[in-house]
Structure formats: structure tokens, C-alpha cells
């Protein structure tokens, strides 16, 4: 049962082969048993989960269930959920019980009837690529517990990989869905910016942040995405678009699909064995009827530098709200108001968050704003234009998701720049606002490798179709770590 797809679980629930309470209990028991090793969840509330499961069972009995009603999932602890502790991986919010629901939470649980198994660990305020910056300690990769699961959605990735949950949500500002999906053998999708509401999703870099699904397969991701999207009055950048069924094109043949291979993604800087797995996946696509064309993203080497100006700038502004006045941590001892702010923020934020706030404060400052912030925004335009040109020649762009497989805990923790470079292939997608996916495509030394798919704006349906056809022809996505067999 633990390895079944969302569609199979949905059928089992509809046929009354299992109830939502039974299914949720199965996963809650696995969490209880395996979470002490993995540290994938930071908050579990069995009673609250089972109450949601009972409500789902009632909906199923009454014939008012939707396709995913009663299926349990894990929520990244960046989404505010009423009555649930919502920490964002920070001491600053370690005791914050949200008084309201994020739109994603409302849609998935209240509307679609999914059951929440709890909140998953993450890098503090989503700033990290290894899940080591969490106040609640690192998450361990189920494929090798001496290694990181990736980040920042590392808890969600580890939870789904070890089958502590059938699926999970993540958020992706510079690769935080795709990179952990790659490192844990999952399928993860970052939608086009503006498709999933950011209301109640604790803000890191508002012009880049986007929520999305993390699951075992493209089909699971499509079904989950259907429950997450939609226009939201309460998010000023939410896009008002017609509703679409992201599962509608899953089975379409790939004959004639044009795959763009950016020469910048196939040069130096990527582990040779990872690259071999990516190339093998592309060969498989050619067998499925696709053709390849070389494209160029000439400014892609500037994506990491531009990102580390733009994201910290937005973060320094967003995180100024954590001041010990209205919610969250307040230092126990302080003098005047300024001292209270300073001690609260010094004690409440971890080292990486403080670094990024400081970079942001600096690049936005008078005298440096043009040279750094505006220059980064101009480069952002160049990067986005590169994609516009590339998509004139192809339907989908492919390459590696991450330059290496999962690295050891502690390996990059002391050097921020090395850590930042783990997102070298994913960041440009956020800067442009495009949809991107990571799909399992092989193993190197027993560790998973991810193939990255990048689509044009609003091409989620095509990406899911391209990923699904590959998963019909291969079984990499069905491999499980020992703890989930």
C-alpha cells in the first residue's frame, strides 16, 4: 500500500478497500518509526490528522469526495496552517501556531479533502540547498543517511522518498523543489510564477517563490497540481487564467517533440557520471520520437551571481517583519526598542539567514543600489530573453538538475559559495519565471540522478506529459530506498 500511486490510492478509497483513517494511520505509524532517523517532519499531530481523515471518510461515504479526498500528504513547514505550528525551519517561529490557512492549505485540505500528515523540515526560511540550515537539525537522505536530501524542501523530499507520505508540497525559489527531488529520486514540479498562490506561504524572495508538488511520478504531480493552482485575490501576483486539467495530456505521444540542449549545461562543472545518466535519458527520449537541437543560454553563468543579489535583497525586506513585536520570537533580555530588535534578530535567525539579510541590506543601500540591484535586474532580463530565443527552436529544454548526486552532511556547510553553486542549473528558471521539473533518470554509486525539464510559460501540462511518457518507458522513478521496500 505504501508504494501505490495517488491514482491507485484514490481507487482503493473509492472502492472502500481501505478508509482514509486506515491509510493515514499506516503512514503516521511509519513516521513514528522512521522519523527519528530521518528528521523529515518537524511537527506531527496524530489527532488532528485523524480528524481530517474521518472528515474525508464522511465525504467519501456521502458521495461528495473529489479525486484525492482522503489521501494523506506532507506539507512543507513554510505553509501557514491554522492550528498547526508553522516554523519555516527557524527558531524565530519555533512556537508560532498559525492563526490562518495559506491558500494552498485551504485548497488542498478544505476543498480537495486531502489529509495532512504534518509539517516537514526545511532549510531556515527556505535558504539553503542541503537542509542543514534548519533550526530543527538536518534531514537525512533515505538513500544514504550520511548524506543530505538537498534543500530547501529536504524534509518533504526525504518523507516521500522513504514513503512516510505518498506525496508532499514544496516551494522553489532557486531550485528548492527540483534539487531535493533529484537527490532523493522524486518527481518535482515548480510551476510558472504566479500559478500557485503565495498567500500564507512564508515569503523568502517574493518575485521568485513558487509552491509545487513533490511525488513519486509525473502523474501524481499532475493530480496534486490540479488541487494547488488557481487565481487568488489575496496574492497580488496571482495570475487570473482559465483552469486547466494538468493530467489531460499525460499520455500524448512524444513524436515530433523538439528537445533543446543548452550547450552551457553540457560543458564543464557537472559530475561525469551524472552527465552520462542525463545523456542516457535524452537517448531514451529520442527512441520515444523526440529530436534534439542544440540551443544556447549565453547568460546562464550569470544566474547565480544575479540571484544572490535579487533573492537576498527581497529577503532583507521580507524578513524585516520578524522584529519580536507582532509574532514569533522575542529576546528575553533587552534594553531599548532598538536593542530588542537587534537581540531578537541575532538570536532568532541562524547564520545563513543573517548573511542573506546583510547582503540584501547592502545591495539595496544608497550608492550601491544601481551597481548591484539594478545590474542584477538587468541581467535577469538577459537571462529571461535567452530562454525566449531558445524556445523558438524547441518545445522543452533538458539538462541535469544538480551538478552532483547527494553530498555528505557537513561537506559544503562551511563554504556558502560552494553551497550556492549546487543550484547552478536551476536558478535561471526562477529568474525567468518558467516552469521546471526534475525527473529520476538513473543512479550513480547507489545515489539518484535527476533530469531537469524546463518548459515555456504555462507549459506545465507539456512538461508533465514529457515526464510521464518517459516514466512509462523506464522504471527509475519506481526504485525505492531500503527503508521503503
Amino acid at each position: 500500500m505504501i508504494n501505490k500511486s495517488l491514482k491507485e490510492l484514490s481507487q482503493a478509497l473509492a472502492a472502500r478497500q481501505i478508509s482514509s483513517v486506515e491509510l493515514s494511520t499506516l503512514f503516521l505509524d511509519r513516521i513514528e518509526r522512521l522519523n527519528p532517523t530521518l528528521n523529515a517532519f518537524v511537527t506531527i499531530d496524530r489527532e488532528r490528522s485523524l480528524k481530517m481523515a474521518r472528515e474525508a471518510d464522511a465525504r467519501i461515504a456521502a458521495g461528495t469526495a473529489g479525486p484525492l479526498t482522503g489521501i494523506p500528504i506532507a506539507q512543507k513547514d513554510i505553509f501557514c496552517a491554522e492550528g498547526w505550528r508553522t516554523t519555516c525551519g527557524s527558531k524565530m517561529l519555533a512556537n508560532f501556531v498559525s492563526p490562518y490557512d495559506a491558500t494552498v492549505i485551504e485548497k488542498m485540505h478544505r476543498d480537495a479533502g486531502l489529509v495532512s500528515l504534518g509539517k516537514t523540515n526545511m532549510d531556515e526560511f527556505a535558504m539553503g540547498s542541503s537542509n542543514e540550515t534548519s533550526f530543527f537539525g538536518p534531514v537525512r537522505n533515505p538513500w544514504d543517511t550520511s548524506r543530505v536530501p538537498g534543500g530547501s524542501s529536504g524534509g518533504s523530499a526525504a518523507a516521500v522518498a522513504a514513503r512516510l507520505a505518498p506525496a508532499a508540497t514544496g516551494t522553489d525559489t532557486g531550485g528548492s523543489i527540483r534539487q531535493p527531488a533529484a537527490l532523493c529520486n522524486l518527481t518535482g514540479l515548480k510551476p510558472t510564477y504566479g500559478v500557485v498562490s503565495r498567500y500564507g506561504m512564508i515569503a523568502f524572495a517574493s518575485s521568485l517563490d513558487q509552491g509545487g508538488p513533490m511525488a513519486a511520478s509525473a502523474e501524481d504531480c499532475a493530480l496534486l497540481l490540479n488541487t494547488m493552482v488557481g487565481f487568488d485575490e489575496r496574492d497580488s501576483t496571482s495570475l487570473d487564467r482559465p483552469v486547466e486539467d494538468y493530467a489531460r495530456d499525460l499520455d500524448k505521444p512524444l513524436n515530433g517533440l523538439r528537445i533543446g540542449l543548452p550547450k552551457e549545461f553540457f560543458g564543464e562543472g557537472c559530475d561525469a557520471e551524472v552527465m552520462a545518466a542525463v545523456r542516457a535519458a535524452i537517448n531514451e527520449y529520442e527512441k520515444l520520437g523526440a529530436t534534439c537541437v542544440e540551443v544556447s543560454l549565453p547568460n546562464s553563468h550569470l544566474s547565480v551571481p544575479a540571484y544572490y543579489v535579487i533573492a537576498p535583497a527581497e529577503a532583507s525586506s521580507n524578513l524585516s517583519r520578524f522584529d519580536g513585536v507582532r509574532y514569533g520570537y522575542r529576546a528575553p533580555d533587552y534594553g531599548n526598542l532598538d536593542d530588542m530588535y537587534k537581540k531578537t534578530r541575532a538570536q532568532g535567525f541562524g547564520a545563513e539567514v543573517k548573511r542573506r539579510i546583510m547582503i540584501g541590506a547592502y545591495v539595496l543601500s544608497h550608492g550601491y543600489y544601481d551597481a548591484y540591484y539594478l545590474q542584477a535586474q538587468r541581467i535577469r532580463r538577459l537571462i529571461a530573453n535567452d530562454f525566449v530565443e531558445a524556445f523558438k527552436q524547441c518545445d522543452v529544454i533538458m539538462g541535469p538538475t544538480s551538478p552532483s548526486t547527494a553530498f555528505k552532511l557537513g561537506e559544503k556547510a562551511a563554504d556558502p559559495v560552494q553551497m550556492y553553486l549546487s543550484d547552478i542549473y536551476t536558478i535561471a528558471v526562477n529568474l525567468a519565471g518558467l516552469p521546471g521539473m526534475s525527473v529520476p533518470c538513473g543512479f550513480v554509486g547507489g545515489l539518484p540522478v535527476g533530469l531537469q525539464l524546463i518548459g515555456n510559460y504555462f507549459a506545465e501540462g507539456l512538461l508533465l506529459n514529457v515526464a510521464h511518457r518517459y516514466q512509462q518507458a523506464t522504471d527509475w522513478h519506481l526504485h525505492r530506498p531500503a527503508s521503503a521496500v
Partner: protein
Amino acid sequence: MIPYNAFHFKTLCTAKKSLAPMSLTLEQVKRIAHLARIEISDDDALTTQGHLNGIFQLIEQMQAVDTSGVEPMAHAQDVSQRLRDDAVSEGDRRAAYQAVAPETESGLYLVPKVIE
């Protein structure tokens, strides 16, 4: 909320016209920490200086690019801000929102005395 003018500071604006190669002094690091309202010890300032300078070395790659005539891109989608009717759309949830505050009294947030 941190004061708006926190990010407007003259001390860092030395008459430096060419920016590369950039290197922050320890004093500048402490000044940035002050402006971000983060208390920092001398030891931490030193470690932070090393990290920030490493990061700025990465960022400096941008300076080699000629971007004259390129319109800055603030957002992924070129859409303008929506307007809505000036009408109350949310109910009063003050009690629920203040329940999570560190210190309140009579519906007000308490902070150390600001005006002597």
C-alpha cells in the same frame, strides 16, 4: 517593523566610483549588521566578513557585463498591479492575531518605551 530608513546610509557611500574588486571592511560589516538590526559580536563580524567577501566575489562577475539599454526586470510576468474596490473584505480577527504576539495589552502591542 524595522525603520524604513534603515537602508539609507551614508557611511558606506565612500566616493568609490569603480566597485571591483570589492572587499568589505570589518567596520562596514558591523555597520550593515546595525542597519539590518542584527546584533553582532566582534568574533561573528570577522567570520561574517570572510563569508560576505566570498559571496561578493561571486557577485562581482556581474560587473563585467554591459547592460546599457537593458530594462531592469523586477518580475517574471509583465502585469500591472490589480486594484480592488475600497471596501472591507476581511472580518475582524484581532484577538486571534494578537494571541501569537510576545506581549499585548488592551488590544495593543507592547514594546519598550520609545518616547522619554
